[in-house]
């Protein structure tokens, strides 16, 4: 399947999922109160995250312009279409410049590159905005793989105990003891360097700590009175897990997702620097800009744009994440009741 079709599907699935969650959530006072509280505490950060989400979605919906007689045209996303179709120069140019950085040749689009162009002449603003989709892909897809895996194994280990617990715990210890960067690189070198493989590798290294938390919570929940009562009434184990244990983990899922999001994106940046990241990410931009600061005169706009875009998103997610944890943490839930 072609890349852009996958992207369209993903965007559609995301919007569908979000609408479903919002519709179901509206009926639950618990969640709508909590979300309102989170937004109240961190209004700016929430808006920033929403903006990044919007840009990422814009960049996910793409299609080809069917041209009669053309052999292969690149698919262009909604974001791409904001910019003119042939927006490239030949090489570096400073922000808002009208001539090339080296040599002074006139540009094809003088004064139109708000953040300049990179070594291949691509518009830096366009690249920086495009990184949003990659960042959200990293956080989203990785969590989509890691969280269900962690829940499944953590639940099994905590609820059934015994041999199952020992096995899962051994698996967790094994994975946790290997330094994550090394493990990431080793995995990517072996399974391949595409975006899905990178997300898979990130999932393998990031599910462990959440799985431990799920296991711990399940152990606690298993001993709760109403779970024991359900068991005494003869309710099947699966049903107990589904109806009584799982819903109590939902707040943990949200907290974990938000808090590990920034770690994942920052990890990808390091992977990019090591040469095994995802194309189009801010990490890759930073990696490519590595020796630009050593030039004379320095070229700073490439690095500045990527770092700032990365920093602002991570900061916003961290801020929202703190609010999410404060609002959803069961300890604070207990104190306020």
């Amino acid at each position: 399947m072609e890349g852009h079709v996958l992207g369209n599907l993903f965007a559609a699935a995301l919007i569908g999922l979000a609408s479903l969650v919002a519709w179901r959530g509206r009926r639950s006072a618990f969640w709508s109160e909590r979300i309102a509280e989170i937004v109240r505490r961190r209004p700016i950060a929430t808006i920033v995250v929403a903006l990044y989400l919007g840009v990422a979605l814009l960049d996910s919906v793409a299609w080809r312009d069917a041209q009669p007689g053309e052999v292969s045209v690149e698919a262009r996303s909604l974001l791409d279409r904001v910019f003119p179709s042939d927006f490239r120069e030949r090489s570096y140019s400073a922000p808002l410049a009208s001539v090339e950085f080296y040599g002074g040749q006139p540009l094809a689009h003088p004064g139109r590159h708000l953040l300049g162009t990179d070594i291949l002449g691509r518009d830096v603003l366009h690249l920086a905005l495009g990184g949003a989709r990659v960042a959200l892909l990293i956080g989203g897809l990785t969590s989509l793989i890691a969280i269900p895996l962690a829940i499944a194994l953590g639940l099994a280990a905590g609820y059934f105990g015994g041999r199952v617990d020992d096995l899962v715990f051994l698996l967790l210890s094994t994975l946790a003891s290997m330094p994550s960067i090394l493990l990431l690189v080793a995995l990517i070198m072996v399974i391949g360097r595409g975006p899905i493989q990178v997300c898979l590798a990130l999932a393998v290294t990031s599910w462990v700590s959440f799985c431990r938390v799920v296991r711990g919570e399940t152990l606690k929940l298993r001993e709760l009175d109403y779970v024991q009562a359900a068991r005494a009434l003869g309710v099947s184990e699966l049903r107990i897990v589904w109806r009584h244990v799982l819903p109590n983990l939902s707040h943990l899922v949200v907290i974990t997702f938000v808090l590990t999001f920034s770690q994942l994106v920052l990890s990808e940046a390091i992977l990019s620097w090591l040469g095994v990241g995802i194309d189009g990410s801010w990490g890759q931009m930073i990696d490519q800009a590595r020796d630009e600061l050593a030039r004379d005169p320095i070229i700073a706009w490439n690095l500045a744009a990527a770092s700032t875009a990365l920093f602002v998103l991570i900061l916003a997610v961290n801020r929202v994440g703190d609010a999410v944890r404060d609002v959803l943490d069961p300890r604070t839930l207990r104190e306020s009741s």
Partner: protein
Amino acid sequence: MLGYLLRRTAWGAATVLGVLLFLFALFFLYATPQDVARQALGEKAPPEAIVQWLVNHGYDKPAVWNPQHPFDTRLAEHFRRMLLFDFGRSDADDVPIAQRLRDGVGPSLSVTVPLLALGLPLALSLALLVAFFRETYIDRAGVVLCVLAMSVSVLVYILGGQFLLGKLLRWFPISGFDPDPSVLLRFLALPVLVGLFAHVGADVRFYRAVFLEESGRDYVRTARAKGAGDARVMARHVLPNALIPVLTNVVVEIPFLFTGSILLESFFGIPGLGSITVDAIHSNDFATLRVMVYLGALLFIAGQILTDVAYTIVDPRVRLG
């Protein structure tokens, strides 16, 4: 207590075996040795050269089961050699890996030890300061600064530090390493400084949380009711109790002092174990990469056991249980 430590060690051993199994599955079953050979020798290498290379590097044996000699398999070989620390040669340039490791430990330590020795007191003092003034502007500003500092990628700290202090202000050389003590400090200054900046945010946040949690405990209330002042409460009551989780946090790090920081070493040209790892990545040197992951896991498990020991020494509740 001895029984507990023995159990932990046994569990650690089981984990090590699990790691070796995982590494075997990843490197030998998923990726074929032919690919590795071809990468080392080049695409155009003749088949005989590839076969010879495979024999030299022990890749020619059957993977898991050999009907004639049950233990003459790659699996058994892998386990035996790793457990005996017989690391063989690099896939990329045939240099003995063990020798590389020996050469690299010194430079790695020269960066990581100062980082720990300076970073820990720095983070602790800042966290103590912020916790002392909790709920005032100092505290709030401190927390915001920490979150800001944590949100910047390490890469940016490195590039920024190199640019600002190396190129612009010319205080330190941008990179390089020279074991000669008279100039060593100048080469270490920048990586250590950058490392400090990169970690201080997260560390201060964590230590602050620990201090605040201890400050809210009942025995602190008792101390105040006795008439103790804030400073005394912090120093004599909160700090000793808070040091327990802090200490366990630090002891876990000790083994990693030896492996060095991948990013700092490669950016600043320090020829330590981190650089070796990066070189292995760039040259697809699976043999070295395997060893580095294995050592990392060993050191991590050693750190866990060390932490348990430290706990029993420091916490009277565990020691005299």
